[in-house]
Every structure is written in structure tokens, then in C-alpha cells.
């Protein structure tokens, strides 16, 4: 087991290196391939009517004229030992692990990521709790009452949940619970949990529910399908033949087996979400990683985009590692097979 974890961790690090190389290539090398000169790239970072000198200075400051591999080498070196960046009259030190230095905000990328991550994590974690409990409960009941009014109704709602975009459900929920009836605050009210847990909670209820609605819908359908399949398994028949009460059959035998595929999907979803829930964050004005990513892409802040991408990849890789380990805990065939 220990060797397995070590092996997976090494794999994860290699994976992240590969992701960083590919992302780096996409952002720093592809534009060159597409015929953009470093002058044009640099012009994106200097005001409205850039002068030649300004462009030249910017290129030098950002090292845009170096070959892409050299730039990547500097990047990786920065992660290992840190780097220095010029910001005019001062030199800013970006301590290891230096994930680059933002062209826009003139700050180490990591600082911004660390600043933004808690909002996204709060959003993702709270929503995950709601959608897991809600989605699985609804899914189980629907599966057990297959074809009933409840089943049909919830599955229609679930379908709409999957197909309605967040910015729509988000605006509707804001309209209903914030603008019309002032139960919850509107957008932009996110407060760090360390600053004020009550406000933190109030501000996140609507985003949680909105985001969870989308996922709960998906998980309800997933759970229902899984339960229907599992309920047809031979071992469920065996459990019934033993004379077990139906509740034991459902919870202990059927649900547990249905949960393993959900765990896999959950790992991917949560990992991806921890990298930022773009639409939810935009709709509710939550300063998280998703909004950071979009803003950075729009403003061409490549190091920041790279940083968010890496963080997202890292969270996906790590959460999936955890899911795989959990798999081994849950399913003895994985552990002992």
C-alpha cells in the first residue's frame, strides 16, 4: 500500500510537470507559431499607445525574447529556488516555490492563488456536501420508486437542473431570495470564514445551492441509474433471500456498491471545481480562482493563467489520488486483488 502511494505521488508530480510544459507551450510557444511577434505580445502589456522603447523594455523585463525552452527552464528553476523580478525602482523576490510572476498585478502568482483559493474551496466544499446528500438521497428514492410520480417529477427537475446554465439559475435565485425577498445577500458579499463565519455562510448559501442544484441533478440521475443496476445484482437477491429488512438491503448492500462509481465522478468534479467555478463565481461575485482564471485570460496575464491551470491540475490529480485510495478502502477487490 505504501509503495503504491509513493508510486502514485511520483506519477502525480510527473503529470504536473507535463501539464506545466504543455500549458507553457500553449501560452508561450503557440502564439509565436501563429506568427505573433514578441513585440505584439509585449504590446499587450503596455498601455493604449505603446512606444517602441516601452515595448522593448517590457520584452526585456518579462524575458519574452528568450527561447521558450529557456523561459520554461527559468520557470521550473523558479519553482525550485525562487526568482527575482523587476518592478521598476524595486526588485521583487518571488520565493520558492515561485509559480511565476503576474504581468498584470506585479505580484508572485502564488500569492494571488493563495488569496483566491479559500473562496473557491469554500464554494466547492459546501456545494459538494449539498449535492452529495441531496443528489444521492433523491437518486436512491427515485430508484426504489421507479416509475412513480416522485421518480418522474424529480427526474424532470434533475434534467432541467443539468440543462439550465448556472448564470440563469443563479440570477433566478438571486431574484427570488435576494432582490425580491431579502433573505440572503446579493452578489459580492463573500467574506472569509476566518473574518466572519456567519457572513461567510450567509453569502455562500445561494451560490452553494445554485451550484449544487446543477451537480445534485447529475448525481441524482447517476445514483438512480447505479441503484437500478445494483438492485438487479445477484447479491441483492441473496441479501433479500437471507431475510434482511429492505432498509438494510438498500443502505448496506445496494447503496454501498452504487457509491463507488459516484466516487470516481465526484473526484473529477471536485478536483475540477477546486480549480474554480467560473460561472458561479462570476454570477455571485465571489473572488475565487475561476474568476481569476477568466480575468487573467482576458487580460493576457499568462503566468497567472498558467498558475491557475497548474493548481487545477494539481487538485484534480490529488483528489483522484485520494479517490483511488478510498476505492481501495471501500472495495476489497482493489485492495487485495
Amino acid at each position, binding site marked *: 500500500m505504501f509503495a503504491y502511494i509513493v508510486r502514485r505521488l511520483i506519477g502525480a508530480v510527473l503529470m504536473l510537470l507535463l501539464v506545466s510544459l504543455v500549458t507553457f507551450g500553449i501560452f508561450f510557444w503557440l502564439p509565436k507559431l501563429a506568427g505573433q511577434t514578441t513585440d505584439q505580445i509585449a504590446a499587450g502589456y503596455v498601455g493604449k499607445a505603446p512606444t517602441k522603447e516601452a515595448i522593448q523594455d517590457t520584452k526585456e523585463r518579462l524575458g519574452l525574447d528568450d527561447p521558450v525552452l529557456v523561459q520554461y527552464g527559468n520557470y521550473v528553476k523558479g519553482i525550485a529556488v525562487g526568482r527575482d523580478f523587476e518592478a521598476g*525602482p524595486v526588485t521583487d523576490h518571488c520565493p520558492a516555490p515561485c509559480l511565476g510572476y503576474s504581468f498584470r498585478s506585479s505580484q508572485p502568482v502564488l500569492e494571488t492563488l493563495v488569496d483566491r483559493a479559500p473562496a473557491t474551496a469554500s464554494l466547492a466544499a459546501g456545494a459538494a456536501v449539498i449535492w452529495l446528500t441531496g443528489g444521492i438521497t433523491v437518486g436512491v428514492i427515485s430508484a426504489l420508486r421507479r416509475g412513480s410520480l416522485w421518480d418522474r417529477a424529480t427526474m424532470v427537475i434533475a434534467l432541467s437542473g443539468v440543462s439550465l446554465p448556472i448564470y440563469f439559475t443563479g*440570477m433566478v435565485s438571486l431574484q427570488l431570495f435576494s432582490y425580491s425577498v431579502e433573505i440572503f445577500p446579493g452578489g459580492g458579499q463573500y467574506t472569509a470564514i476566518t473574518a466572519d463565519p456567519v457572513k461567510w455562510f450567509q453569502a455562500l448559501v445561494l451560490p452553494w445551492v445554485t451550484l449544487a442544484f446543477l451537480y445534485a441533478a447529475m448525481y441524482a440521475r447517476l445514483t438512480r441509474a447505479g441503484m437500478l443496476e445494483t438492485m438487479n445484482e445477484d447479491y441483492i437477491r441473496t441479501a433479500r433471500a437471507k431475510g434482511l429488512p429492505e432498509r438494510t438491503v438498500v443502505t448496506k448492500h445496494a447503496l454501498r456498491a452504487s457509491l463507488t462509481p459516484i466516487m470516481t465522478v465526484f473526484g473529477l468534479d471536485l478536483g475540477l471545481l477546486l480549480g474554480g467555478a467560473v460561472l458561479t463565481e462570476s454570477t455571485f461575485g465571489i473572488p475565487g480562482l475561476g474568476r481569476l482564471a477568466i480575468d487573467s485570460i482576458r487580460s493576457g496575464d499568462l503566468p497567472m493563467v498558467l498558475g491557475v491551470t497548474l493548481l487545477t491540475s494539481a487538485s484534480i490529480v490529488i483528489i483522484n489520488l485520494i479517490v483511488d485510495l478510498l476505492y481501495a478502502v471501500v472495495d476489497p477487490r482493489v485492495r487485495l486483488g
Partner: protein
Amino acid sequence: MNKMRPIAVLAAGVVAAATLAACGGGDDSGDTGSGPGFNAGVKEQVNKSDKKGGTLKFGHSDDWDSPDPGNTYYAFSQNFSRLYGRGLTTFAPAAGDASLKVVPDLATDLGQASDGGKTWTYKLRTGVKYDDGTTVTSKDVKYAVERSNYSAELQNGPKYFKAYLVDNKPAYPGPYKDKGDEGLKSIETPDDQTIIFHLNTAFQEFDYLVAMSQTMPVPKAKDTGLKYETTIASTGPYKVDSYARGKSMSLSRNPHWNQSTDPLRKALPDKIEVQLKQNGDDIDQRLLAGSLDVDMAGVGVQSGTQPKVLADDQKPYVDNPVQGFLRFMSLNVNVKPLDNVHCRMAVQYATDKVAAQTAYGGPLAGGDVATTVLPPTVAGYTKFDLYPQKQAEGGGLDQATLAKAKQELQACGQPNGFTTKLSARSDRPKEVAMAQAIQQSLAKVGIRTDIVQYPAGDYFTKYVGVPKYVHDNGIGMMIMAWAADWPTGYGFLSQIIDGDAIKPSGGNNLAELDDPKINKALDDAIANPDEAARLKTYGEIDKMVMQSAAEVPLVYAKALMYRPKRVTNVGITYSYGGMYDYLNMGVE
């Protein structure tokens, strides 16, 4: 305005009598009473109060280019930066025409001109301090100008000082590279309270230039270059406690700000908070719900919110100011057959401006029909209409107007019309709609246009701002919009109709108008110390441009602004493009 009124009235007649009444008012007057009402904040500040305390909340759907006063260009940023910084001059905190007035701020008085307008001297107020308690000196103002105009790092702001100040020999490399103490020789600081600027040309509107945030003092020891935006040294009544890009800014009282040194500012709220990158619709809803005080961008509510704010119960809290923007169509004087002035005049008559206005959102959200290049909110604006149009019953230009267009076509030698290209920015759907409306109206006199669309980001640098491209592709008509960097005729016109503004790439003089008479008139005007004469000249220049028929003014842009009940001292300032004046706002 007389000549314009027929268009508006007839257009409104088509729609409904109720609208007719609103349009009949024509200019953005609305209620004239003292209490709040529709457009109450356009002429006068509403909800006047001296009550201190509370938190004033701003929201913005985007972010600053930089809140560093030396590295910013946006109008909202110029407006807002005055809360934490004081430049040599600023615009009077007022609404309507009074807001166009330049007044001393950090300086005791407006600039003393000498040497025929080539040398400008300012005296600083005594006792002005930074938020750390140190005293502001004229050297800090000099340093602020140097860093904002001469460094390679701070590139967001305009470079007017660099253009007008006498340069060192060899060229001054900026304070970050130049390690000497003297810096830029053309800015002298004989003592801590005096600063003297030496210009390379007579420039009588220098007081407007120093109203820019670039003259807000920056202590050299505190300058951290690009990082200064997070560590701004404040001279205003508020200090910046935190700025997180893409997230928020919060300000609290600057304990070292002294009311006695500052006759302009009321400094009412205890705290000011700005939320950045907010959902635009959410901002509007929060304004309506009263949980947000100001939409910082100042360009009006989202189109989805417009019907809501125009409802009877909300309309008294709405202002509909002219925004200082002119949307217009340039006719390139080097593209055949538009090189012939009569062909251009035909276009002037045949362009249905009401249709263009409707395409851009109508009289409230789009703007007023324009007949001059200078918008009414720019100092020097004179009303006239060289190419009067009338609307036919049921819409479209009437036969008399069309006949005039045909007459001009005849004079141009193109009696059956001609074919050319009409450009618009592909990612601005309203602009494209406007182009289509124009295309339809021109077709009625036989002027056939192909609409060509280019992305806004490259519009001036790669396409219509490149004369060679325009000539090679025969693009005769180009739609664009323009606002002044400072609200005078020179500030507005010099970048779009002066021959010097024709550049190989990135220029804004799309018509390639290079009329020696116009060029000289502009140069003479800016050197003229007599303000009244200067302003009069701007109107004359405007008329000369319209006589050349090279620019087709379409609409003076307007916006629907919402003014929440609890906000005090709310009024529209024209100096910053028709948004609310942020200097003295408070909360009830």
C-alpha cells in the same frame, strides 16, 4: 438645437405621444425642480448633505487598468483617484456645466502662465500631508510626472506631459533608469512649494493637463514601480487600506488629511469599499435594492435593466446624461468617390440618423441625434446643423432630404449613386446594427455599401487606423466613437481631425482630414490665452470640419444612470464623461 428638433419630434411622433413629450424636451432637461426626479442629477447635485459617517459602496464589473494615479487612463479612475490623491488642479465638484470648471486642488491657484503660455508655475498649499504624516513637496509632484510619463514600466496612462514638456538632451530615460538627482530639467522645483513646467510649445489648456491624476504627488522613497498600486501614498481624505486586483479595494479615513487645506472635499463616509469584477446584472439589482451605492464604471445600467429603471416608481431616481462620447462615421477623403466633397455631402443627407439612433438603443440608452463633431458637454460646443434632415411620416427620411442627397450626387458626378465599404467593430453588436441601419438608408439614394467588420482590439492598429489598408480595400466609411481626454474642443478634436493625427497605424483621424486651415486653427487656438476666444474658435473649427463633410456625426451618447436613494451629493460631472462625481458622495 432648432434645426435638430424637427428630426426628434417627427421620430417620436412615429412611436408614441408619451415619448414625444420626452423627446420634445430634446436636450436632457427633464425635471427642473429642486427635489429628485428624472434627470435631477444632471444639472445639479441631488440629495445635498454634509452628514458624515457610513460606508459608501462601489461595484464594478471590471477592474482598474491600475489604481496607481501615475499608471491609469480610465475616466472612472481619474474621477475616483481624487479620493486618495490630490493633483495640482481638478474639476469643480458640481453637476452639469459647472462641472467643466477647472479649479486648484493641491495648488493654491490655477497656473501662472508666462513666456506666451510656454511656462507654467504652480504654488502648492502648505500643510498637505501623506497618510504617513510626511509633508508633500513640489519635488514629489515632479517625481510623479516623471515616473508616469518617462518610465518604461508605467505604460497605462496618457503621455501628454512627455509630448509637451521640453526633453533633456540626451532624452530623459525616466526616474527608474536615471540615477541622477536632477531628473527632468524642464520641471523646476525652486522650493518645496513651487513647481515650474517648461513646455516646448504654447499650450493654454495646461491647467486641464495637470488636472490628470499624474500630478498627484508620489514620494520617491515610497515608489515601488508597478507594485505601487498596492502601496499608494495618499494625499486625499482617504487612504487605500487594501487593493486586490480583480477583487476589491477598501479605503478608510486618512488621519493626516486636513480639511483646512482642502476647500473642495467634504469627506463624508468613514469607509469606502469597491468590489471588482462583479456580475453586471447583479450590480444593477443591488443598486435598485439599495445594497450597493454606485456603479463605478459610470456607463449606465445593463440593457436588461433599462425597462426596470424606466418604470414609474424608479424613474425619479434615474439620470440620463450625455456621456461626452460622439458616435460618428468618418468618410475617408482619399477613397473614391468620397474624395469629392459633394459625394460626402450626399452621404451627410442620406444617412438616416434617427435609424442609427434607434439601432444604438434609442434616445435614452443610445443618445441624442448629433449634428456636430463636438458633443454638447465639451467646452466650445456650438449648436448648428449644416445638413438638416426631416423624417417622413411613418419613418425614414422625407423626400425633400433625399432629394438634397440626390442633388449632391448629381454634383459629384454620380447621379445613380456609388458603391463603397462601411466598417464597424464586429464585437460591438449595436455598432453593427447601426451600420446596417445606415446601409439601408443610403441605399435609398443608390449608395450601396458592403459592411466589413473587424475586431475592436485591432480596429485601429491593423485595419481602419492604417491608411494603406483603407486605401487598398476601398473602405470609404468607418464607424467609430470618440471622447475627449479633457473636456475642451482641443482635447476632443486634436486627435481626430488634425493632420498630425494621421499615423501609419493606430491613428484616430480615420477620414484622413488634413486641411491646413483646420490644422492652423487648432494650433492657434491652443496658443490663445483668451479663453472665450479659444472656445469660440472650437465651434468654428467644428463648422469647418462639417463643411468638409468628412465626419458624419450620428449620436451624442447617453446613458441611463441609477442614483440610489441613500446616496448624497449625487450629480453628473461632464469632466469625466458624464458619470457621477465621486468626490463628495456620502450616505444617509
